[in-house]
């Protein structure tokens, strides 16, 4: 007899998330997702992106990742996947690559926000600080390492998902999530969980295009912010 899938299995089918593994903290992201029961695939070839429902671009050195992504044709494939609706999460160097910016390295510009490299200074200016999240009341322990800064503009107001003092440190625009700190360096899984929700919502939307993006409810709590 064929067992009928339970309700939760129907709602949460198993998903696989890719992690760009050219350089940087890819192994740490894998560890975080494993704790959430999510299987992962290290991405070093364009065709590997066809096997995953979402992508994480990790922390590391943005210039190195950018060079290798270009050489191995991963950059075009990532843009193509994003345009086809794949959720992508970039942490630190990953956020730099996903955002816009005049300075090197060349950006993927999948987010319309400008992400400034090394905006707080050098390693001696690295710091940790409590990050306020829109989707969870407890502050998140944010570790900022030679961190970039998301430049506030008209679009950034509606994108805020996390902030520290005056700075936007976690933003979401449609299916692109950027964090300037490193959730993969902590045991706290809330930011990764948020991304997995985005991936699941995207898959559900693919199946049933009439469905509203389930993340839109999260947006409302950030309206009270005045930045």
């Amino acid at each position, binding site marked *: 007899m064929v067992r009928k899938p339970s309700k939760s299995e129907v709602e949460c089918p198993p998903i696989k998330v890719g992690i760009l*593994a*050219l*350089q*940087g*903290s*890819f*192994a*740490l992201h894998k560890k975080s997702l494993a704790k959430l029961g999510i299987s992962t695939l290290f991405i*070093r070839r364009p065709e590997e992106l066809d096997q995953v429902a979402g992508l994480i671009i990790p*922390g*590391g*050195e943005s*210039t*190195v990742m950018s*060079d*290798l992504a270009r*050489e191995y044709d991963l950059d075009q494939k990532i843009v193509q996947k994003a345009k086809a609706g794949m959720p992508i999460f970039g942490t*630190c*160097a990953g956020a730099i690559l996903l955002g816009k910016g005049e*300075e*090197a390295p060349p950006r993927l510009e999948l987010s319309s926000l400008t992400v400034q*490299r*090394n905006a707080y200074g*050098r*390693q*001696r*200016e*690295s*710091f*940790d*600080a*409590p990050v306020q999240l829109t989707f969870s009341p407890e502050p998140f*322990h944010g*570790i*900022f*390492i*030679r961190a970039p800064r998301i430049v506030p503009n008209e679009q950034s107001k509606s994108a805020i998902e996390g902030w520290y003092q005056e700075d936007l440190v976690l933003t979401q625009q449609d299916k692109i999530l950027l964090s300037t700190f*490193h959730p993969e*360096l902590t045991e706290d899984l809330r930011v990764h969980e948020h991304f997995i929700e985005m991936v699941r919502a995207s898959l559900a939307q693919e199946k049933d295009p009439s469905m509203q993006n389930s993340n839109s409810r999260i947006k409302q709590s950030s309206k009270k912010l005045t930045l």
Partner: protein
Amino acid sequence: MSTNNSTSWEEKVGFAKMHCGGVIMDVTTADEAKIAQDAGATAVMALERVPSDIRKEGGVARMSPVKVIREIVESVTIPVMAKVRIGHFMEARILEELGVDFIDESEVLTPADEAHHIDKLAFKIPFVCGARNLGEALRRIGEGAAMIRTKGEAGTGNVVEAVRHMRQIQREMKELTTLHADELMTQARDHGAPFNLIVDVAKSGKLPVPNFAAGGVATPADAALMMALGAEAVFVGSGIFKSGDPERMAQGIVRAVTYWEDAAELAKITEEYASPTMPGIDINEIDPSQRLQDRGW
């Protein structure tokens, strides 16, 4: 929770982890630093002379001149590391002041103190130190090193000592994981290592900080070999700027560290980025008094 300006242990080790899967390259000038950055280095390591020249020319090897450090810091956007002599905490203070991101307390330079290493916890910026075995690695971590690298034998273009040190550290860690709690204090005594760190390793099977390879890496295949032996990233010293074509050699090593698990890709990289390697030295030809790895304890 620490305040905005203090760099805690988490930021030090976190920063070290961001170099994983990358290559850190020795440079002596701003021009070399730019070549290294363009070739895909995750960081550059500033020092007065590369190890093979120190070996040839002799004399006291020190940290880079301040002017050179400033030029390097200004010329690249990637992190800048720099070497200081073992025990020379004033060289380290100067480098921290100059905005250097990571300090290598290195046996490649002439030691300033034959008995004591730097108190690395007293600094805001992180340190990396060399080690030949687990005890040495844990002593350095106990002093505050946020990254460990094998010592290997720098300036030889011969990877054999880096392999020896990496295998030894991995073997000693594995051994600890097989022991009972009541056997660990004896291990702490035998390794000459802090007890709490021995307990840590016995539980996790790995160092509490990233473990990189260094000392004698001279080809993309050498770099891939060190990754396969458990290194999380690779330092290359003389191997790049003493090779026939530094730019290509650097690019080849960077790619080999990313694609080390893919033999077909490695073969392609090794061919495509072929560059005459630096002249190597057999370890047995080196007079024991000239061995850099025996500096520090």
